[in-house]
């Protein structure tokens, strides 16, 4: 099993979600997060005082998939989330040792 974590633009969530559903991804966890990569933040001005904001709001998706689906899922995210501009985000992939369905103690890929 493989975990895909994708940090994407907030505005791309709907597109990514439907792209993933189209290829048969059945579950995901979505988080509202803040962070920055190489992208610089922006400045905000309140009553003449400037504040630089470098933790930008982003959306993070977490998917745990059977290994066979990983390439397809990553491609779907890449296609749906890309604008070509700085700040499009990143995808991280990692191994998952075990998955357990809490309801009935089912284990492994069947629990996904």
């Amino acid at each position, binding site marked *: 099993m493989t975990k895909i974590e994708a940090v994407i633009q907030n505005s791309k969530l709907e597109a990514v979600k439907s792209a993933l559903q189209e290829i048969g991804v059945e579950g995901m966890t979505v988080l509202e997060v803040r962070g920055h990569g190489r992208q610089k933040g922006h400045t905000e*001005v*309140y*009553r*003449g*005082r400037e504040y*630089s904001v470098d933790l930008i709001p982003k959306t993070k998706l977490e998917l745990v998939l059977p290994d066979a689906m990983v390439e397809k899922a990553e491609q779907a995210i890449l296609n749906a989330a890309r604008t070509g501009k700085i700040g499009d985000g990143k995808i991280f992939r990692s191994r998952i040792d075990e998955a357990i369905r809490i309801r009935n103690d089912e284990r492994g890929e069947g629990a996904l």
Partner: protein
Amino acid sequence: MLVAVLVLLFAQALCAQSGAPAPSPSTDVTARLARLEQQAAEAKSSADNAWMLTSAALVLMMTGPGLALFYSGLVRKKNVLGTMMQSFALMAVITVLWGLFSYSLSFGSGNSFIGGFHNLFLRGVGAAPDADYAATIPAQTFMVYQLMFAIITPGLIAGAFAERMKFSAMLVFMVLWSIIVYDPMAHMVWGKGGLLNASLGGYFPTLDFAGGTVVHVTSGVSALVCALYLGKRVGYPKEAMPPHSVVLSFIGACLLWVGWFGFNAGSALAAGSLATSAFVATHFAAATAALGWAAAEWIRNGKPSVLGGISGAVAGLVAITPAAGFVKPMSALLIGLIAGVFCYYMVAKVKARFGYDDSLDAFGVHGAGGTLGALLTGIFAVSAVNPIFKDAQGNTLKSGLFEGNAHQFLNQLVGVAIAWTLAIVGTLLILKLVDVTIGLRVSEEEEVQGLDLSQHGEEGYYWEASA
């Protein structure tokens, strides 16, 4: 059906009040005329009273939720409740003081500087009008209307010591400030025999329609003294402290704008054309001030901000407060525009240059805007709007500088100087007293934790409760 019952009840109440039996055909003309005059007076009184009670409610709405929202949106998340509580507590505390003795100290007969104890515990403040102040409404209406001003004025100061003052210290400070600074200032400008009273024979007749000196100069200047005495917030100005919710501030500012109609148009103390004039001037000044501040920002930063727009509107409302019942609409447009740009400059440039932490700009908006408005009143006031000055024969005299009464500008300067002096001396005295007895500031640890938890044991946004 309900309406019919209401009308019947109302008619009964009217009869009961006037105590007049049904007219008999034999009544002579003089008696009927007298009765007619009395009924006309009663009708006017009812109309005026309806407007004044509405205005009183509007002015209370300026403090809660208006000012409470405006200020609490500007602080950090951890201080949202503490900031709201500073406004709200005054709604309760000042009310009690006002009933017990503050109304008497402000509006009772006394000397040039402060009222006496004639109206202690509201003795003699009932249904009968006090003709010196407002001849057509119950004295009790006048009392409760003025109370709402006494509530919001100290509330404005809280913007200067936001996020760092102990709640207990704030309470003691506000009680003392209300007695030592507000009551004398209100008496001097509006009270019978007050030193600055323009219509009841003051020595330096100062034009202050709705509280430019009494409310905004006193609170704004006291705010500056507080900011300087208490010192900066932990981390200021290195740490970023942006407003946690301009949304809350926006709602608050719009409520302030609406409430200000009660504040300024209500200060006509009647529902006549002077109230209309003040209403229009108030609205016009708010509009150009919002435009002025936002335009200044647009030019300097490249973007007009929402916070700039609403801050400008409040600055314009502050500046028009003393002038509202004395100036024409076109003058109001001008006063607002000047105030919007001037207060922007005070807040964005002057504060940064001197480095004081007037956290929510109580001085930059109320102190600076109030002073500006009080002086501009002396320039733009015209007798056509409000024939307030009369000679011994009852002829109307000129009001402001542009009309040809240059002397009035000097009187305005005197009024402003007295307000500044009283505010500085009084506030310093009170701060020192509270400082050496119970202490003013929360500990550094409590400040970092936030006022909500450290002072009140609650949180404005309790994230675990989302389920």
